[in-house]
């Protein structure tokens, strides 16, 4: 592994105070991201994947409260002073969002927005900043960079806006890129381009990437390791190959099976019954229990903890062996 910085997340929890009491959106999540690696945080709406990402760099606003440890470059990001956190955020750690239109300032030219980030995180002078901005636009594949720097966000298409976002994020030579559903709003050919761009930048710059997505196809094509989240907790993690080959949590198994596969056309899909629980009304025991076909009394009584079942492979399911063995039943 090349020299670089790793992110270590330990026991991260995010709670929100609501009129109905505290709601835990992220509950004891732990993971590492190594340099040059793409970690996928996978889950459905309400699983806590986006909140996790935002919690890492202090983007949770009161009444939200974040606890745990986020170790980056020898310091805990959750306890550093705000000034230091600001330097890390947008500097060593950059973030891109799902909807670039709302993440970009509509009344400033994109050139200005790139330069703003350069000014905040580098010591370049005006001329150098402009040269670097052009360089960045070339890097992310925006043609005619010189002229495009003078344009406003609304003059770009969705895919180009996402490229602008990425250029801004890269301005500070980040070591870690946090991507929150960066391609969900894009068409499939454009999504493909953006994902490939992120991968090539990862190789070039040896960045770690945390990719939040609900699309298992995106995961399969992009991620090295994945962590599957359900109701605020990681239920399974491991390398993408291991998990796609042999899911060991009933939820992961159901998610993979609910995606239509070639060769089984017009047959019924293996759907997961029911809907994800509200975070304010989680069932006792395993949160997935009520929707799980493997669940028994033990699952309803105790909440399974995430346990190591192999090198780099974790699962939080009492019946993970049965789940793994049952694979052939539906494929």
């Amino acid at each position, binding site marked *: 592994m090349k020299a670089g910085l790793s992110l270590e997340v330990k026991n991260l929890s995010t709670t*929100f105070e609501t009129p109905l009491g505290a709601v835990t959106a992220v509950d004891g999540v732990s993971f590492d991201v190594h340099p040059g690696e793409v970690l996928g945080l996978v889950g459905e*709406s309400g699983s806590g994947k986006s909140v996790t990402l935002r919690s890492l760099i202090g983007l949770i606003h009161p009444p939200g409260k974040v606890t745990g440890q986020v170790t980056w470059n020898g310091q805990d990001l959750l306890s550093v002073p705000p000034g230091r956190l600001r330097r890390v955020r947008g500097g060593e750690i950059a973030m891109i969002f799902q909807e670039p239109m709302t993440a970009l300032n509509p009344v400033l030219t994109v050139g200005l927005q790139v330069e703003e980030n350069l000014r905040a995180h580098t010591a370049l002078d005006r001329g150098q900043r402009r040269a670097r901005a052009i360089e960045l636009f070339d890097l992310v594949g925006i043609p005619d960079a010189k002229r495009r720097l003078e344009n406003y966000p609304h003059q770009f298409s969705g895919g180009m806006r996402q490229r602008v976002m990425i250029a801004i994020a890269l301005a500070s030579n980040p070591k870690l890129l946090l991507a929150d559903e960066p391609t969900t709003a894009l068409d499939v050919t454009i999504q493909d381009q953006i994902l490939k761009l992120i991968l090539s930048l990862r190789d070039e710059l040896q960045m770690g990437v945390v990719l939040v997505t609900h699309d298992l196809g995106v995961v399969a094509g992009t991620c090295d390791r994945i962590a599957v989240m359900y109701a605020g907790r990681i239920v399974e993690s491991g390398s993408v190959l291991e998990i796609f080959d042999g899911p060991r949590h009933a939820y992961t198994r159901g998610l993979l099976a609910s995606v239509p596969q070639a060769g089984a056309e017009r047959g019924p899909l293996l759907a997961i019954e029911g809907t994800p629980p509200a975070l304010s*009304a989680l069932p006792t025991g395993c949160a997935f229990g009520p929707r799980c076909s493997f669940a028994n009394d033990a699952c309803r009584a105790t909440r399974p903890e995430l346990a190591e079942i192999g090198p780099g492979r974790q699962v939080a399911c009492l019946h993970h062996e049965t789940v793994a063995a049952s694979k052939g039943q539906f494929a």
Partner: protein
Amino acid sequence: MTFALSLRGQRRKTRARRIPVSLIVGGAMLAIQLLLAVFPSVFAPYAPDSFDYNALMQPPSLAHLFGTDNFGRDVLSRVIHAYSVDMQIAFFATVLPFLFGTSIGAVIGYTGGLAETIFGRLVDAIITFPFLVLVIAIVAVLGPGLNNMYIAVGVVDWVFYARLAVAEVKVQKRLDYAEAGRAMGYSPARIVFRHLMPNIITPLIVYWMTDMALAILLGSSLGYLGLGAQPPIAEWGVQIADAKNFMGTAWWMSVFPGVAIVVAGLSFSLTGDGVAEKMRTRR
């Protein structure tokens, strides 16, 4: 944020059960005033027009809580009796514009095209004139009096409801539920009045509430100018007009009717806010 979605189920229920404070306060104030309007003689200590030349322009006292005016009439009794007139003005001046303007606006908004263009020009023409000036001009033509005032207000006021309804319908008709109605083959009338109307009515009711407050002000202003309610009818505007020569010597003659106007306006506004809060659409 995504987690908020999963919370909605819970929050919704609590909101549905709770009645907004503004609605409770505004509603209670309105209820009391309506009671005064319907049964003024029960609450008023004196008749509104009984002269008492032995007690001209008395300051507030135990016998006359709000004092007396230049004819010795009890100000409190006149303020109470004025409720009948002013609450009537609030309601009758606005109910027809509300019903007509809302319906016609919804239809215009749904139809669009030429009807909307013509309506747009009409609105432009009408809002060029200050509302009050326009109403005064019409009353001047028709002659003073309450009924003519209702007509004058109605001729102008419906436009504001219609304008609001057009805007609301144009938003709602693009939503899939309205499209779904069209795809189901429902008639335009059904879509406008059964489907769109319940979804646009909230801001219109709120506007109606504010408009009733405005109507009271307008009624009083016209009364004050001698174009609305005619003396010796007890009406706040008329009272203030009567009092204008005695502002320096007998403040109670004008202040108490003035306070009544403010309180009435406030209670309509509060009720409007409360209704808005209560009826906010849940999706």
